[in-house]
């Protein structure tokens, strides 16, 4: 009975999700961009990190221009003669890696803290939630700025900074849902069966927190990508050798005043499409999974 019910619930969920054409398109765009990022080394016309393949003679070419060597730069080139299309594909990869890695780590850590707070209650709960409140009362960009000033540049460091600013959202969400679930009959029943507390926590309560967590994770990932771009733009995130989308935009900023728009506008469009599509998917997930939150 239960086994027969599961696939149909999944199907109902899928159908409900794709009921919105906007969300369907957004999901497709996101998947396409992820694939492009994963296979960046195969589809990019040039390896932007390999200085030998880059010719300084080709610098600042507008989109569509053909190089001396006969190669067409569909998206133009930057100040060092790098093909923008290739740079953007690799930049997209780095932005996605940062967003995904920080999201997953923050999710795991925040969920653990939230579950502990909900399950233990008492002073543990009070202490953990005070820390969460403190964290959420400070603006994310300020905390990330402080951390990056202390830690320095690097992909691992920006991931740490993003985890620190994000975990509290997960912890608070999970605690809220877990407290509601904890009071439900099925948890009482599990307790009545004398199941070990950890088993109840991870196999009974946690699965029921997942839908809400999925929504928060989607939105947090979009936030993380956007924040990373902002920090890199300020010169605080990633090292310039492996530019993310934000750093590409920052590099183009210097050329903007002289009318060479493509170097920062095009990576910006990619960033915009990426973040908006993730947010649209997240919004739709919330509507489908938590009908009472609609509004």
């Amino acid at each position, binding site marked *: 009975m239960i086994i027969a019910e599961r696939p149909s619930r999944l199907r109902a969920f899928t159908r409900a999700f794709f009921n919105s054409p906007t969300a369907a398109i957004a999901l497709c765009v996101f998947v396409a961009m992820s694939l492009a990022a994963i296979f960046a080394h195969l589809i990019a016309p040039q390896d932007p990190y390999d200085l030998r393949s880059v010719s300084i003679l080709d610098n600042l070419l507008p989109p569509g221009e053909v190089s001396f060597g006969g190669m067409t730069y569909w998206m133009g080139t930057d100040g060092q003669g790098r093909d923008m299309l290739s740079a953007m594909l690799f930049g997209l990869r780095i932005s996605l890696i940062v967003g995904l890695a920080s999201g997953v780590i923050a999710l795991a850590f925040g969920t653990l803290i939230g579950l502990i707070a909900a399950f233990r209650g008492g002073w543990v709960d009070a202490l953990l939630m005070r820390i969460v409140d403190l964290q959420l009362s400070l603006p994310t960009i300020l905390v990330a700025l402080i951390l990056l000033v202390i830690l320095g540049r690097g992909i691992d460091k920006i991931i740490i900074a993003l985890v620190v600013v994000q975990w509290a959202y997960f912890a608070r969400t999970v605690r809220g849902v877990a407290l509601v679930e904890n009071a439900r009959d099925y948890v009482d029943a599990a307790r009545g069966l004398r199941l070990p507390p950890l088993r109840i926590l991870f196999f009974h309560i946690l699965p029921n927190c997942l839908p809400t967590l999925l929504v928060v994770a989607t939105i947090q990932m979009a936030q993380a990508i*956007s924040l990373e771009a*902002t920090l890199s733009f300020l010169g605080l995130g990633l090292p310039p050798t492996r530019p993310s989308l934000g750093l590409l935009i920052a590099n183009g900023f210097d050329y903007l005043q002289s009318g060479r728009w493509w170097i920062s506008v095009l990576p910006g469009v990619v960033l915009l499409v990426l973040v*908006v599509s993730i947010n649209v998917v997240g919004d739709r997930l919330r509507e489908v999974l938590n009908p009472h939150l609609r509004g």
Partner: protein
Amino acid sequence: MAEFILRRILQAMLVLFVMTVLVFFGIHVIGNPVDLFASSECTKACLDEIMVNLGLDRPVWQQYLIFLGNLAEGDLGRSFTHGVPAMSLIWERFPATLELAVAALVLALVIGLPLGFYAGLRPDSWISKAIMGLSMIGFSVPIFWIGLIMILTFSVKLGWLPAIGRGDLVTVFGVRVSFLTLDGLRHLAMPAFTLSLLMMSMVIRLTRAGLREVMTSDYIRFARANGVPEYRVLGWHAMKNLLIPIVTVLGMEFGGVIAFAVVTESIFSWPGVGKMLIDAISVLDRPLIVAYLIFVVTMFVLLNLVIDILYSLLDPRVRLGAGAA
């Protein structure tokens, strides 16, 4: 009541204390400020002299106590690069940041409220859908990119607005402001709009959601049944209840806007505290970085404290809930 306020004040002080520890010791991990002052032919003796001058020869916990003692007197040390007290630099530049943030707040309300009203009243029209789509983009797009596009459009291509600086200033009550001159307004327009986008999107969403909820409530129906004219129903009766969540959220977001001004100020070279911070970071001007962080965090904690206390005065449930927890 007094107990609740006292508890909140103690809590705020604890938070501030923790932040001074974090900021002070965190900053002391980075860079070696002696290098900033030492010339290339500096010998060991001259390096030691710089160390003593900066107070870096003492153990770090002593440095922290000295820092706390000075902090209590409002002295956060001298900026390494400017050679003047860090706090005076902050007070000198903070009005510019505040002006930018207030202008952004005003823009968010002036533009956001009418758009949210329209979207709430006619939720199915295509204009409403466009408004909601735009607010989604306002939430999603990093504001620095919007700033870039605006510079490209209005400064580079059209040449209408200046891309950098503050323009002509007027002194009002000892504070120099730019919104009272035409040139100043032209300089203010793009940074303020860029900074307001996030708040504007929030105002649109809150207004729309609030309006749809309020319009189905009994008191609106009774007002209409009593023949109250529609503009008064919307502009007065509905508005009163709408503004509560909006004011709350904006109040809490305002500190965030000051923090986000770092980005806007960097793009438009707006001479506020945010731009100063980024410059200080690039040369590792420790006292200035610490002063900025302590200043902003203090402002934040005070803002939250005031909001909490106001709330407890307005709504007794908050205070009872907090007392029980």
